[in-house]
């Protein structure tokens, strides 16, 4: 028979503090903190000891020292005599960011095309896209980069017999040579006009959307936008030219003793790196896009068809906007992968951050700890910033859901 239990407060049972989950948790955490701290302290202490014993210089003062070496591809002026290791760092960083930016844009375009082709109703196109994806994804990027570099070098003619393309464009083993635009003092007008054109195009688009929603009438958005963005600057340029002003002149590449001189040179290392990164990443983006599109239910397509939308319009207005919700998170990680993979530049001799800073600067100064720490911090920052920007976008897109 049962007697009602005496009314002891349930919240404080008599158990040994050893078994109290809160105390245990605190103990675990304290232990972890102590161990992590100890590890970190030991590592730092050892490093300091070793550096002292080996009489290796330390500190970040080296960033102000004169570099003494040259870099061939630099967007900012860099000279061995006057520039510092700090400047070399900036050159490497800019080169990394440039490759990453160009690579991301091109890989996105190619990736979406291939991903859509992968789902095409056309059998041969779908199979081709599939083969592309499978082959590229299963071969290491490093190998592909080495291959593209060799392919670029061996497929092109030597510097003395360059291919001459129309418009003073030349192609040889040393890269692609384009006319270099030289901006005169009054050239500021052009970017200004361009910005105005873009702003106008955006405004018109919003206006057109409103008109369509109100009246159902569609305005020729694309034509007007093209006119504003491209036509306006061209018109202003023409006007200035008529007035006898030359805001932009072109420096053409001309033949020198060894190679073409002047002009804008795209180096083969850069081309091989961008080519390799884009082709590799696009295969992954294509899979992301395919998964995204397949996640949109069939009914959506069928409904769009029933409304009389054509297949291209269906894709653009119905499928892709919904697929984006699924696509964006993995797409973000592909962008990050591309940025991180750009560090393989070291294999083809493109002077990115890792090549210049972790390669040359580390060797010239011998300050491994500082150089490695700075480089890793840069990539970590890029990763975190990209991730948070993409998360913002992701949140915006996700809110559309009912």
């Amino acid at each position: 028979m049962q007697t009602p239990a005496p009314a002891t407060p349930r919240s404080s049972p008599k158990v040994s503090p050893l078994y109290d989950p809160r105390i245990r948790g605190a103990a675990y955490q304290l232990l972890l903190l102590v161990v992590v701290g100890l590890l970190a302290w030991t590592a730092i202490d050892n490093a300091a000891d070793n550096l002292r014993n080996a009489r290796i210089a330390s500190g970040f003062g080296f960033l102000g020292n004169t570099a003494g070496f040259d870099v061939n591809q630099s967007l900012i002026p860099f000279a061995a005599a006057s520039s510092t290791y700090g400047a070399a760092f900036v050159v490497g960083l800019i080169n990394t960011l440039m490759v990453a930016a160009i690579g991301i844009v091109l890989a996105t375009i190619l990736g979406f095309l291939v991903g859509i082709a992968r789902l095409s109703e056309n059998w041969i196109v779908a199979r081709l896209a599939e083969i592309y994806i499978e082959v590229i994804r299963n071969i290491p990027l490093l190998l592909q980069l080495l291959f593209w570099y060799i392919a670029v070098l061996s497929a092109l003619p030597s510097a003395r017999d360059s291919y001459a393309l129309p418009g003073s464009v030349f192609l040889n083993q040393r890269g692609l040579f384009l006319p270099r635009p030289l901006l005169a003092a009054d050239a500021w007008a052009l970017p200004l006009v361009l910005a105005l054109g873009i702003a106008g195009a955006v405004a018109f688009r919003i206006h057109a959307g409103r008109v369509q929603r109100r009246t159902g009438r569609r305005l020729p958005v694309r034509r007007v936008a093209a006119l504003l963005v491209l036509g306006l600057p061209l018109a202003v340029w023409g006007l200035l030219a008529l007035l006898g002003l030359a805001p932009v002149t072109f420096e053409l590449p001309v033949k020198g003793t060894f190679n073409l001189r002047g002009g804008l040179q795209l180096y083969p290392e850069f081309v091989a790196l961008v080519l390799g990164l884009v082709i590799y990443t696009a295969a992954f983006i294509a899979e992301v896009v395919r998964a995204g599109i397949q996640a949109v239910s069939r009914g959506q397509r069928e409904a769009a068809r029933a409304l009389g939308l054509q297949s291209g319009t269906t894709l653009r207005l119905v499928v892709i906007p919904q697929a984006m919700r699924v696509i964006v998170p993995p797409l973000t990680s592909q962008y990050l992968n591309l940025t991180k993979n750009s560090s393989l530049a070291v294999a083809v001799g493109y002077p990115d951050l890792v090549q210049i800073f972790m390669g040359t600067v580390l060797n010239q100064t011998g300050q491994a700890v500082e150089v490695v720490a700075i480089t890793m911090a840069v990539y970590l920052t890029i990763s975190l910033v990209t991730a948070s920007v993409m998360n913002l976008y992701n949140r915006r897109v996700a809110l559309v859901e009912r």
Partner: protein
Amino acid sequence: MTASSGLLAQPFVRRDPVPAAPPPALVGGPVAWIRRNLFSSLTSTALTLAAVLLLALILPPLLRFLVFDAVWTGENRDACRPEVLGRPVGACWAFVANKINYFVYGSYPIEARWRADVFFALLAFGLAWMLWLDAPRRDLGAAYFFVVFPLASYALLAGVPALGLPAVPTSLWGGMLVTIVVSLVGIVVSLPFGVLLALGRRSRLPVVRLVCVIFIEFWRGVPLITVLFMANVMLPLFLPGDVTVDRLVRPLVGIALFSSAYMAEIVRGGLQAMPRGQFEGAMSLGLGPWLTMRLVILPQALRIVIPGIVNSYIALFKDTTLVSIVGIFDFIRTIESARVDPNWAAPTVSVTGYAFAALFYFLFCFGMSRYSRFVERRLSASHAR
């Protein structure tokens, strides 16, 4: 009833079946298939033509290079030089055949190469046991693969002079042997650490969670190449002055840390996919948190993530090529150093080397990705039940 049956005393009953009518031309048969899949619309037709044109541009030169113009046998560069042969020369497979031992073993001493062969055999055995889902005693298989096999391989490859196996310094290891060793160490180490990190990241204890999150996000945020550089130049500095680390071990440490972080995220995905009911069910059976994890959650979660693990192994396998940049003689590095051999200086030797490497990596990675898809299908089938 009877009246009507009388009325239809002799009803018509067909005795033999009507011959099947031919299908409409547009629904079946190769022509219709072609029409539907290749020429369904104007755009489709244009795409088909473009695709065929692309194939016509790519395939013939590729085949000519890889097969028809290729050189299969030869002893030195003369076999592959167009000016010697008097014809265009495609891939120089003779070069690969000549260097194949170097590509497989690196500079591993010839008299000890049987040890590497035994290692490959042990590996194949372990892999078969682990990957064949219906194999008997897969628990023993796991023990073999994660404990016995690593120890045996270390003894075999590095050598135990006490057992009559002379020591082979790691500086002599090379080629596919190193590629496989590096990727295996990555996977064997990263799995347990990945599980621990994933559990830590989902822990209730804020400090544990924080430490795990920082660890995971740090390694996932930096490129592998910087990790390898760090392992190469900084690891020796962080250890006491009288400890040195083998050149091969340094990138292994880097790769193990790096892949543990990625593995942790994969395992976390599996843990998150576990329905709450599993936890609650285990709790109602009186299991503590550790037992719940060990007996209920992890076995199921790890099963779900097998495809993820295989995919991460593919990624790891491809990433091991990066160790060549920090001076480890892996497969890529042996190709890089073989292609500058003056005895084999011929125009197509470099590309042949890369083509061979591409084939090797492709076969491995493609095979693994097919396997992972097979497991995925099987898992989803068993879930559907």
